[in-house]
C-alpha cells in the first residue's frame, strides 16, 4: 500500500468507529444529524472538496459530485424525517472502501506486470584498457567490450568474442530450455548468463537493443486501445448524464401525480449512487493490460488491445511455410543417380553449386561433407530462375530445375517428391536428381491441430513446388494450400483471401517477419515468429512471438480469447447489475444501502475478474 492508501484506510476506520458511536448515542432531537457529521467529514471531506473544485473547473458530472450530491441529499431527507442519517455516512464510507480497494488492486497488477517485464539491466561491465568497470548500459558505445559473469543479465545486444556459456532466455521467450552459446555467436540482451564468463562485443547501443525495444513495445501497447475500450469510454460519457437526468425526472414527475416528495427524492438520490461508470471504465483496460502482460511473460508480445481483439476473433490463420512451419533448414533427403553412383552425383552437384551461397547449395555441400575442391571447377554461369552451368574437370555440368533440363534437351523423369529437386546433367545427358527438403518443426502439427480444434481455418502459402507444398499440407493437416508463389504473390493471395471473407472473423498471417513485411501489414493481424534478434520482425508485426514455435500461436489466440471473454463478462455483468439496480430503485424495491453495495461490489468483482487475465496459460 502506498502512503496515501494507508491514510485513506485510517480515515475509513476512524469514520466507521465514529459512525457506530453516533448510531449508539440515544438522542432523538432535531440536532441528531450533527452527531453524524464528524464521521461524514472524516470519511468524505476530500470527495466534497473535489466536487466543489471540479464544478469550478466546469467538470459537472464527475463521481465526486455525484457522491456528494447523493449523500448530502440523504442527509436532507433524513432531516425532513423521510430517511436515515446513518445511510448518508455509510454510502460515503462504502464508496471510499471501494475506491481504496480499486487503487490497491490496480497498483498490485501494475506492479506484477512490471516485475515480469523485469528485463531492464541495471549495469554493464565495460572493459577499457584491461580494466573492468560497472557503467550504465546507456553509456556503452557500439564496439565496446563488456564482460558478463554467470548470474548476470546480458545488458546489450552483441557478439561473443570469448568464452562459452548457456543462456536463460525465459524472460524474453518464456522458454525455460537454456540455450548454449560460444564465440562468434550473437546474443540478445535480456538473457541471463548461466554458466561461463562471456566477453561480448557490443553491436547496438542500449536504445536500439532487444531489451529496450521489447520494453518500449509493451509500454506502448496500452496506448493502442481496443474497440471494447473505446466503446466503454464513449458509453461512460453518455451513461452518467443519462442517469442524472433520470434521477431528476424521478424526483419531479411521479410526485407531481402521486405526491410523496421525500420518497421519490430518495429514490432519485439512489440513482446517483449507481451512476458512476467506474467498474467498467477501470476493469476493461485492466483486463487488456493483464492479458498483454501475461502473454509477454510467455514470450508473446501483443502490440495493443486492438490486436488482441483481432487475434481473439481470428477464424483463419495463413502461414508462410518456410521458417514458420518448417525449420527453414534444407537437407538432402534423397539421391537418385542415373548411370553413376550416389556419391558421384552428389559430388558433381556440390561442385557445380560450389560458388553459390544459396541455402540449397549449402545443404548440398553439407551432404557431400565439406568444402568441394574449387580448382576442379572452371567457368561458371548463373542461369537465373533455372540453375547453373559449370565446367567441372572439363565437362559441362548443368544443375537446376526441370526448365533447365528441358532447355538443354536432357530427358528427366516426372517427379512427385516433396521438396526441391535439383536435376543434374553432364554434357547434355541426364545424370540424375537430388531431392532437398525442408524439415517440419516438431510442434507444427500440434499447433495446426489445436487451431483447427478451435474452429480456425488454416491456410499455407509457399514458394515451393506443388508437390512439396501439398505433401507438407497433408502431413500437417492444413485445410488449404497455395504453392509456387513469389513474395509479391503472397500479398496478392492474402488480399484475395481477405476479399473472399464475410462475417466478423479476422485473418491472421504468420511469417518469419524478415521478407514478408508487406503481407504482415496487409493481414488483419500480422504475426512474426522467431523474432528474437530480428528487429525488422519486431517492427513489422502486430504480434511478435519471440521464439520460433508455432504452438505459441495457439497459445496467443487462447490468451486473447480468454482476455476478451473476461472483458465481455465484466461489461455485461456491470451493465446488468446497474440496470437492475436502477429498475428496482425506480420501483422502490431497493434503497440506497443496496445500491451502494451493488455499485462498489460490482466494481470489486469486475476488478478481481480482470486480474484473472494476468495469469495466462
Amino acid at each position: 500500500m502506498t502512503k496515501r492508501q494507508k491514510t485513506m484506510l485510517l480515515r475509513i476506520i476512524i469514520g466507521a468507529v465514529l459512525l457506530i458511536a453516533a448510531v449508539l448515542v440515544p438522542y432523538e432531537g432535531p440536532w441528531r444529524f450533527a452527531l453524524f457529521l464528524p464521521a461524514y467529514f472524516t470519511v468524505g471531506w476530500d470527495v466534497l472538496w473535489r466536487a466543489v473544485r471540479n464544478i469550478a473547473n466546469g467538470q459537472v458530472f464527475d463521481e465526486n459530485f455525484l457522491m456528494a450530491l447523493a449523500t448530502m441529499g440523504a442527509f436532507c431527507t433524513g432531516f425532513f424525517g423521510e430517511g436515515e442519517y446513518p445511510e448518508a455516512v455509510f454510502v460515503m464510507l462504502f464508496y471510499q472502501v471501494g475506491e481504496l480497494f480499486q487503487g490497491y488492486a490496480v497498483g498490485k497488477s501494475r506492479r506484477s506486470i512490471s516485475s515480469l517485464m523485469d528485463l531492464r539491466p541495471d549495469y554493464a561491465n565495460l572493459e577499457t584498457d584491461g580494466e573492468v568497470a560497472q557503467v550504465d548500459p546507456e553509456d556503452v558505445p557500439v564496439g565496446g567490450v563488456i564482460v558478463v559473469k554467470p548470474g548476470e543479465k546480458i545488458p546489450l545486444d552483441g557478439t561473443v568474442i570469448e568464452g562459452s556459456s548457456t543462456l536463460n532466455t525465459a524472460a524474453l521467450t518464456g522458454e525455460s530450455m537454456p540455450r548454449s552459446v560460444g564465440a562468434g555467436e550473437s546474443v540478445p540482451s535480456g538473457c541471463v548468463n548461466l554458466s561461463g564468463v562471456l566477453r561480448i562485443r557490443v553491436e547496438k547501443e542500449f536504445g536500439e537493443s532487444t531489451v529496450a525495444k521489447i520494453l518500449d513495445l509493451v509500454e506502448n501497447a496500452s496506448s493502442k486501445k481496443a474497440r471494447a475500450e473505446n466503446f466503454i469510454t464513449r458509453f461512460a460519457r453518455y451513461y452518467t448524464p443519462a442517469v442524472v437526468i433520470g434521477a431528476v425526472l424521478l424526483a419531479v414527475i411521479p410526485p407531481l401525480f402521486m405526491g410523496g416528495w421525500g420518497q421519490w427524492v430518495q429514490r432519485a438520490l439512489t440513482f446517483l449512487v449507481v451512476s458512476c461508470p467506474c467498474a467498467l471504465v477501470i476493469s476493461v483496460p485492466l483486463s487488456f493490460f493483464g492479458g498483454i502482460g501475461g502473454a509477454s511473460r510467455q514470450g508473446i508480445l501483443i502490440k495493443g488491445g486492438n490486436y488482441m481483439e483481432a487475434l481473439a476473433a481470428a477464424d483463419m490463420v495463413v502461414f508462410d511455410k518456410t521458417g514458420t512451419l518448417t525449420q527453414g533448414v534444407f537437407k538432402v533427403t534423397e539421391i537418385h543417380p542415373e548411370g553413376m553412383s550416389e556419391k558421384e552425383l552428389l559430388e558433381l552437384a556440390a561442385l557445380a553449386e560450389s560458388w553459390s551461397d544459396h541455402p540449397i547449395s549449402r545443404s548440398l555441400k553439407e551432404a557431400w561433407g565439406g568444402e568441394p575442391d574449387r580448382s576442379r571447377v572452371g567457368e561458371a554461369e548463373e542461369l537465373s530462375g533455372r540453375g547453373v552451368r559449370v565446367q567441372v574437370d572439363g565437362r559441362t555440368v548443368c544443375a537446376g530445375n526441370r526448365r533447365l533440363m528441358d532447355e538443354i534437351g536432357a530427358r528427366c523423369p516426372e517427379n512427385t517428391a516433396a521438396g526441391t529437386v535439383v536435376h543434374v546433367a553432364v554434357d547434355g545427358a541426364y545424370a540424375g536428381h537430388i531431392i532437398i527438403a525442408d524439415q517440419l518443426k516438431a510442434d507444427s502439427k500440434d499447433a495446426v491441430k489445436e487451431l483447427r480444434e478451435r474452429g480456425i481455418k488454416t491456410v499455407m502459402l509457399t514458394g515451393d513446388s506443388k508437390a512439396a507444398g501439398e505433401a507438407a499440407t497433408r502431413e500437417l493437416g492444413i485445410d488449404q494450400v497455395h504453392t509456387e508463389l513469389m513474395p509479391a504473390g503472397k500479398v496478392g493471395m492474402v488480399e484475395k483471401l481477405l476479399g473472399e471473407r464475410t462475417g466478423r472473423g479476422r485473418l491472421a498471417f504468420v511469417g518469419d517477419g524478415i521478407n514478408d513485411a508487406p503481407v504482415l501489414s496487409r493481414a488483419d493481424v500480422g504475426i512474426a515468429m522467431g523474432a528474437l534478434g530480428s528487429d525488422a520482425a519486431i517492427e513489422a508485426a502486430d504480434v511478435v512471438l519471440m521464439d520460433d514455435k508455432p504452438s505459441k500461436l495457439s497459445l496467443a489466440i487462447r490468451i486473447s480469447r480468454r482476455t476478451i471473454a473476461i472483458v465481455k463478462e465484466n461489461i455485461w455483468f456491470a451493465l446488468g447489475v446497474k440496470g437492475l439496480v436502477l429498475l428496482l430503485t425506480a420501483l422502490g424495491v431497493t434503497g440506497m444501502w443496496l445500491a451502494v453495495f451493488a455499485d462498489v461490489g460490482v466494481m470489486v468483482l469486475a476488478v478481481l475478474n480482470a486480474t484473472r487475465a494476468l495469469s495466462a496459460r
Partner: protein
Amino acid sequence: MTKRFKLIDLDCANCAAKMETAIKKLDGVEDAAVSFMMQKLTVTADEGRFEEIMDQIEKACKKVEPDCRIVR
C-alpha cells in the same frame, strides 16, 4: 513528433479517459493517448510548437484532474 510523459497520481480511470478527450481537442495535437494502467501520456504534436502545446495540455489536464501531474 511523438513524446511520452509520466503521469503522477492519476487515480481514476474515468479521469484518464476525460483527459485524453480534452487533449485530443487541443489545437496542434495530432494524437494523444492516456494510459491509466501505465500512468503515461503519449502525445503526437507539431514539433515547432511542442512546448507551447504541452503547456496547454497541462492546463487542460489540471481542469479535469487537478491532482494529477505531468512529468516533463
